[in-house]
């Protein structure tokens, strides 16, 4: 009965430190990004320019969108191991049907979002492990991608090409796009009243059920959102690469998971951050190649650097949360 220590000062300072640790953890994605940027600036000052960013962050937009897609399932304590091949499938559809038969292309893409929604329902109703279901789906998407586009090729629709090669004044397009993505998703998930329910389903599902909310519906919505952002990611990717390949998205599964975790998300408990996820994706995109080339790290070790960054960030997080206690 004396769980609360007497003395208001002591109480608020205790809570203050918890909030401070959370703030620190929230800043971690931004700090890692800043660190990578500083390293680049130091190694090659010319890279910090309008054209430099356009070049370095070339692939940041599709990575950020895929990371956001992964973030939605993680918010509901699930994982999507098929997002990479799904992005590849969308890419193939975009480079073929969406150009040649736009109506058909749109129907197929909307249908694939529907498939994601159905997966969410299946996983909830049959109480299935999402890892295995999405693992199976990764075969399906890859197979479909090959069926749509057996050999690398195709061409992005012109309107998509012109969107992705848009050159706004002063701010490089990838940065502008990242800002918009982060702002839109942050508003949708963190500020709207239904976003609260979506995150709550990851935090304490039982409490939500007791308050009369449908957990089936939250799961369907989360998976559908993953599908939606997967579609956007695949389209953006093709807008940049101009042509497609069935294997084009394969790396995105692991990149997207890493991006969410780098961005301060956690696998369970509905703790995710859209802004963090976008920052994490940018960090990964930057760290993926240009930085390491500047640092004279041979290309062999670039993947290792990604792994090492992940491990270092996780270690930092453990240190911070230890101090929290």
């Amino acid at each position: 009965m004396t769980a609360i220590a007497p003395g208001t000062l002591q109480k608020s300072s205790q809570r203050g430190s918890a909030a401070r640790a959370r703030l620190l953890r929230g800043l971690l994605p931004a700090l890692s990004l800043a660190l990578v940027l500083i390293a680049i600036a130091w190694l090659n000052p010319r890279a910090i320019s309008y054209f430099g960013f356009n070049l370095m962050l070339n692939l940041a937009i599709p990575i950020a969108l895929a990371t956001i897609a992964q973030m939605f399932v993680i918010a509901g304590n699930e994982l999507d191991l098929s997002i990479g091949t799904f992005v590849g499938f969308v890419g193939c559809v975009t480079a073929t049907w969406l150009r040649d038969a736009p109506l058909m292309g749109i129907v197929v893409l909307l249908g694939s979002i529907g498939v994601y929604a159905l997966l969410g329902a299946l996983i909830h109703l049959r109480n299935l492990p999402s890892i295995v279901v999405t693992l199976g789906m990764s075969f399906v998407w890859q197979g479909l991608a090959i069926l749509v586009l057996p050999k690398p090729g195709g061409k992005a629709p012109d309107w998509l090409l012109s969107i992705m090669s848009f050159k706004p004044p002063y701010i490089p397009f990838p940065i502008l796009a990242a800002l918009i993505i982060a702002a839109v998703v942050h508003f949708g998930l963190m500020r709207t009243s239904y976003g609260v329910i979506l995150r709550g389903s990851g935090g304490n599902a039982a409490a939500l059920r007791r308050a009369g909310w449908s957990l089936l519906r939250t799961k369907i919505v989360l998976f559908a959102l993953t599908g939606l952002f997967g579609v956007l990611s695949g389209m953006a990717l093709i807008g940049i690469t101009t042509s497609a390949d069935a294997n084009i998205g394969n790396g995105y599964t692991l990149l997207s998971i890493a991006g969410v975790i780098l961005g301060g998300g956690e696998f369970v408990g509905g703790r995710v951050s859209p802004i963090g996820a976008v920052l994490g994706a940018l960090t990964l995109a930057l760290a993926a190649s240009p930085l390491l080339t500047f640092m004279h790290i041979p290309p062999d070790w670039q993947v290792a650097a990604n792994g090492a960054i992940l491990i270092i960030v996780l270690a930092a997080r453990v240190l911070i949360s230890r101090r929290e206690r």
Partner: protein
Amino acid sequence: MLKANTDIVRLNGAEKHFGAVRALNGVDFHVGAGECVGLVGHNGAGKSTLMHMVAGTLRPDGGQIAVRGNEEASYSVARALELGIRCVFQELSLCPNLSIAENTRINHPALKGFGWRRKAADLIRAKLDEIFPDHGISADDIAGDLSIGRRQMVEVARAFTLTREPLHLVILDEPTSSLDAHTAGQLLSFVRRFVEQGGSCILISHVLGEVLQNADRIVVMRDGKVVAADAAAAFDRDKLVAAMGGAEGHQKAAAETRKVAAGPLRVRARPARQQDEKELVARAGEIIGLAGLAGHGQTDLLLAIFSAAARAKAGLEVTAPVALVAGDRQSDGIFAQWSIAQNIGIRSLAKLRKGLLISPQREAELAEFWKQKIGIRTPDMNNNIYSLSGGNQQKALFARALGSDAEIVLMDDPMRGVDIGTKLEVYDLVREEAAKGRTFLWYTTETEELDNCDHVYVFKNGRIVANLGRDELTEEKIIQSSFGDAA
């Protein structure tokens, strides 16, 4: 006498079974408008089950439920909320990843659209200000960052916030368990105000003083039944204690005085939150009881002793192998995929080996030996563990511990929901094994079981508050020390 149609809620002959256990056995219960009903009883008396029914989270197996005189055929949480019945559950039901305002939003579908965050924040802030004037909680705080006491304050306040749904009855299940005296006082006086303005309330608390002072009427439950119900003024503390404990279970079970030769020291332990010099000491051949209300540090101490046996810990001395008999079978004991024999053998795998491999023959022998000795009722020990009744599952867990090399056996309230026949068989076995030199540390919420113990430590708030010898052991004494309002 209140007329039936002024009742907010009325249950007739409510029944509920969990497997073989009868949690509720034909309970009649009602709450009138503008009334605060106090509900008391020991752990497992059926209070929480009854409240889950009123709140719509559990369906009764038998009996009717009526709200404002209308019988409800398909009663559910949604229906209860619609009818203005809400519950603050004992287990915290805030989302730890959301802010206080966001948690408020979860309970109010009406909080949506433009400006919902401000509305939700204003709503919960106003209610917190009203109930706990100096709460110091901001609506933007994340629930997981708050202390458990503050989380409880938020939950209580949230239950009284009002948007679209009406509010007639609030069930408060141990609402003060994590609050200090000052905050608890604020809450209880708010409840009185709420009731005076025509609201209804069910107050469940183990602090008998709170119930006696704030309830209009008190209902006492025991073993899934209502055993007493009367105006609060008709009760006093002693009468309540007597009604809860049951006077007839009072004669001691043929207390043949066991001769205990003080054997070598087996366990010496101090609870982590102990501030004075009291400590638990157990010697070979002793049966030591751990008493007090549920969740007051008994299990924590048993677990600390258990881990100290594997890895040395400061302040804990354990000199022999330890085994634990779990009380919460589902989460701490049973391996659901395995047979009875495998469930018994897991603690003794090294002993069952022949060469590198576990010998099925030895495993079967061990199982068969204990099947006879402890009387596990099954045609085949290779059947799945869930083919047994609850009591027999518990016997298998006893067999696991007693069949092992452990000299110290920790019992974590293992007789919860076990039938009396099984209990008596196990009591005999425990005494027999103690006579052979084994040490038993026995946490129990059922006071009559303590009669089997050589002496009893009473726990309160994570500390040992009394050490009662066998001769000074009475139910009143235990209840007095564990309910002692002097914190």
